């Protein structure tokens, strides 16, 4: 397993957002992470990235480090008014090699040019990101992922606010990464898209509802259970595993 969760609980102010998750991700897997809003999907990504510490249990990275993980944030997590050009942003994907102080070598510049051409962004190099549409911005972030060339890729709602043609292009890129043996986990809401393009699926609703082959996970019964569990937030809940109130 490239990545495994051992009785993992993540949360905020003692309330679990991901509760007792036991799950393993094989190297080379292409997994859709689905669930209702507030199901803990983005929280799980933060846990994998080490940005929040588990309330209980463990996350095991086997043979990789955090720097081998590439993360695509939701578009609203970025300050898109910042005065930086498309080329400069994509070049930051080479961080693992250039770090905070290194200069971009010709090989990096070639990687950036290749990534921009792969995402149909030729001619956008000098444009400020503030002038881009949502779909164009998402393609820029995919170009940065391409330059990062990481083993594990986490995509948080990669197609939100993106038109169908761009979605098609980005799905094509994800498929190419999968064929190269990269491991990909994507948070998605379009279940039809998941059925068509993602062979494996983890249905999360704070607690894991089901995981495995997508056709077996995305059933009406599982989805109904996910919805019910997601609404079970209790401000006055007792501590997990005891009858003791906080």
């Amino acid at each position: 397993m490239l990545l495994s969760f051992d009785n993992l609980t993540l949360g905020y102010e003692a309330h679990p957002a991901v509760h007792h998750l036991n799950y393993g991700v094989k190297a080379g897997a292409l997994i859709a992470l689905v669930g209702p809003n507030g199901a803990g999907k983005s929280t799980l990504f933060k846990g994998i990235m080490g940005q929040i510490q588990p309330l209980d249990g463990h996350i095991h990275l086997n043979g990789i480090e955090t720097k081998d993980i590439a993360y695509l944030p939701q578009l609203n997590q970025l300050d898109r008014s910042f005065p930086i050009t498309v080329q400069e942003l994509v070049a930051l994907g080479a961080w693992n090699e250039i770090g905070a102080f290194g200069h971009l070598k010709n090989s990096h510049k070639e990687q950036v040019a290749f990534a921009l051409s792969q995402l149909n962004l030729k001619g956008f190099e000098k444009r400020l990101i503030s002038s881009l549409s949502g779909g164009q911005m998402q393609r820029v972030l995919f170009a940065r992922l391409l330059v990062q060339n990481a083993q594990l890729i986490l995509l948080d709602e990669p197609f939100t606010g993106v038109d169908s043609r761009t979605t098609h292009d980005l799905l094509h890129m994800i498929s190419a990464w999968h064929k190269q043996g990269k491991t990909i986990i994507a948070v998605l809401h379009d279940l039809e898209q998941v059925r068509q393009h993602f062979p494996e699926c983890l249905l999360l609703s704070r607690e894991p509802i089901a995981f495995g082959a997508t056709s077996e996970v995305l059933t009406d019964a599982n989805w109904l259970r996910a919805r019910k569990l997601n609404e079970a937030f209790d401000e006055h809940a007792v501590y997990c595993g005891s009858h003791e109130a906080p």
Partner: protein
Amino acid sequence: MFELFIQPIADFSFMQRALIGCIAISISAAPVGVFLMLRRMSLTGDAMAHAILPGAAVGFFIAGLSIEAMTIGGIIAGCAVALLSGLVSRMTSVAEDSSMAAFYLISLALGVLIISVRGSQVDLLHVLFGSALALHNEALYLLGGISTLTLVTLALVFRPLVLECMDRLFLQSVSHLSPLAHFSFLMLVVLNLVGGFNALGTLLSVGMMILPSAAARYWVKSLDMLLLSSCLIAIASCYIGLLLSYHAGWPTGPAIILTLGFGYVISFMFGLNNSLTSQYTKKKHLSA
């Protein structure tokens, strides 16, 4: 023209020292202000300007009108407020502006209390409003040192700082430099405010940070041009402000900041990007 623009600087060494000091503040405070603006922390500069007051006051009462003592006191107080508010925010998930506000208010109250108990109104006015025309050599060395340290630090943390402003999650995913970028930037804010209070006072030195970058944003778009043009606006305003102060007999700090303020008003009215005139005048448009 010579008498109006050149002679006051050429004839008087106190004007030369004031100009050199103000140029030193301009080339370091203006770039720091650009990042403050881009991080939507412009009012943080104002809060920090209040926060250094008790340190400067303690320095004043220990060693009199000693620039070293007041500077060291100001740096200690400013760094303490910056670090405490940053730490409380990161450890308790409370927004940094509220913890910053809490600590700067405590610090300001402490400063006013110290000055009221031990000093006079004249001392307070010096700390608050400075005196650019009275800059001596030690003050110039200090300003030069702060300016050099600021530019070197900005060069070293530039890339992490850009990411900290624009895409902090990405920075945290590829490195552990996010806290370093954040806290070293806050230290630069403190250093420049402390440097500025000798010439302009604590309250006006924040204007040297914020107004040039706020004006520059109406003229240029890219980050490198923002940094360059904010420095040029700050230097030009210092020169004009010093001359205004000399010819009209106005206090130097307010004259410089008002010149910067005038530049800001001109910019938001007539600038090239998103100014009032650019939004309300029809322009030719491209075909694609």
